[in-house]
């Protein structure tokens, strides 16, 4: 199996991204930090939805569980971060098993709607149950941060993206990735091949939840605040989903690509369209790209690269 070429790609990616802060302003670095978080969430979404075909409309639910757990632990109990972040991730794993429950019986649209209901329910619950602890509608502010400043945060979050991305890539390029893809194509035929579909789903959901949990916990400690309206929100869900799909689902590079593309699209529109028009253009571009190529930028680039490759090769041969 040719391993060298993709690994070279990862290496080039790491080198370029590590050098980025040297060349760009801190403002851009700050934008990249958000792009990194979005990349983590999109990768997490893709593990459930892109790979197995169980479309999750409730990913903010998973992210929020980790975020709220670690936020409340540190805010109220002064729990150290090395304890509260794993606690948050663990809580998300429990939440992930909640996703498995409907996934035993339903898929596709129905599954998407249950997870959407999970998110809506969580939004209601953070406000109704013990608003003193969750901070109610306003949320909590003044949550401790891990490092401060744009560049340290950039390296921290890029480290997470790289570690998670490479980890996922290594795991999903093994036969488990093919098994999950098979699950997406025909669940019955997977069972008839002698594989436990429940076990595969559990693996995918737990992996996705763990990534969402890590992302969510670090996200909250980066923001320094947490509020239900920004989190359990259709617009947040929309960004995650579109990042994964626009980049190219069922790949590892796609969601990262999509997250960077979307974040920069929005930020680069800011100087020209500071107001609400920005979101119209942003949404329209996302819509057009998605409708024209549902397999995403990943596919567009790959086809482009494939068409370009022979041309480049010919040029090299020519004197």
């Amino acid at each position: 199996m040719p391993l060298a070429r993709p690994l070279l790609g990862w290496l080039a990616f790491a080198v370029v991204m590590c050098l980025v802060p040297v060349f760009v302003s801190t403002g851009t670095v700050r934008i990249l930090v958000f792009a990194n978080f979005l990349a983590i969430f999109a990768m997490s979404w893709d593990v459930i939805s892109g790979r197995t075909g169980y479309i999750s409309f409730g990913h903010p639910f998973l992210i929020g569980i980790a975020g709220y757990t670690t936020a409340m632990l540190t805010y109220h109990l002064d729990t150290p971060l090395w304890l509260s972040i794993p606690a948050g991730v663990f809580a998300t794993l429990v939440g992930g098993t909640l996703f498995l429950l409907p996934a035993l019986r339903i898929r596709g649209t129905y599954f998407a709607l249950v997870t959407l209901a999970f998110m809506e329910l969580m939004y209601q619950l953070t406000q109704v149950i013990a608003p003193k602890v969750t901070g109610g509608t306003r949320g909590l502010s003044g949550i401790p941060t891990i490092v401060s400043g744009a560049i340290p945060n950039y390296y921290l979050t890029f480290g997470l993206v790289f570690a998670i991305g490479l980890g996922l890539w290594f795991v999903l390029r093994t036969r488990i990735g093919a098994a999950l893809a098979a699950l997406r194509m025909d669940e019955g035929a997977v069972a008839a091949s002698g594989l436990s579909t429940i076990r595969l789903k559990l693996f995918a959901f737990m992996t996705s939840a763990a990534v969402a949990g890590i992302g969510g916990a670090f996200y909250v400690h980066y923001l320094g605040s947490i509020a239900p309206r920004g989190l359990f929100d259709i617009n947040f869900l929309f960004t995650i989903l579109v990042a994964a799909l626009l980049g190219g689902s069922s790949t590892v590079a796609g969601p990262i690509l999509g997250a960077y593309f979307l974040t920069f699209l929005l930020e680069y529109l800011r100087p020209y369209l500071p107001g609400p028009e920005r979101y119209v253009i942003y949404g329209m571009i996302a819509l057009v790209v998605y409708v024209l190529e549902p397999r995403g930028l990943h596919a567009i680039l790959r086809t482009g690269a494939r068409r370009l490759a022979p041309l480049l090769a010919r040029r090299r041969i020519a004197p």
Partner: protein
Amino acid sequence: MTNILIQGLALSGLYALVAVGFTMIFSVGRVLNLAHGVFLMLGGYAYYTAVQVFGISKGAGIAIAVLAGAAFGILTYTVLVRRLEHNPIAVEISTLILAVVMQALIVVVYTSAPKSMWPIVPGVFRHEGVFVSHNILAAMVLSWIVLGGLVVFVRRTRLGRALRAVSMDRKGAVISGIDPHRMSLATWAISGGLAALAGVFFATYTQLTPGMWVAPLIIAVAVVVVGGIGSIVGSLVVAHLIGFMETVTTTLVAAELRGVFTMVLVIVVLVIVPKGLFGREEL
């Protein structure tokens, strides 16, 4: 008790009206239109613009809203949905993106300031300390008429029977000479018009804001999912189940738990009876 009965009936009627177009599209095309809430919102804004900005009569305002909704339904189908029809998930995602785009567009045109509208039917019904606005009673009566009309339409008319045939067996319908695309187009137009009509009532009852598409979408999803996706009668029954549940929760239990119970109902039904309480998938 009378107040729960009257108010529950009224709210349920509104919910049924909100959900019916959503049901039709799923039933005929097997896709979920996550921009359904936007159809309502457009209806509301179109009516507002016609009646409260340009001072056109209410009847004309309603007609404009319904036409705008139907036109937008047709546009959504031909430009967006038709390309992706073979992939229901892609339709859901693209209509979700469309909803977010439309929300941004409304913000640009109307700003995000909430507006409230005059009731279409002014006045209040009072009976032994119970009060209900004529407007919501009108919405209730209208939803019964619309739903009844729809049942008659799909059972009795040629177009309706063709729609029903497509909803039951798409391939079979194609073989018997029905063009499923034209049927889908008709469904999106009808659904858009009905949603806009529901939007006028919904907005006159609550308020107009660019974020108002989420609440009716959640209602439609809850009604349709619990009722069994695609069943008109099921939707009607469940709209009443949810409407009454909300009224009872608000009146007797605790008003802040209103939304929580609805979401719990959705989750429980989907996990235990995935096909819904009236699990047919035809009109």
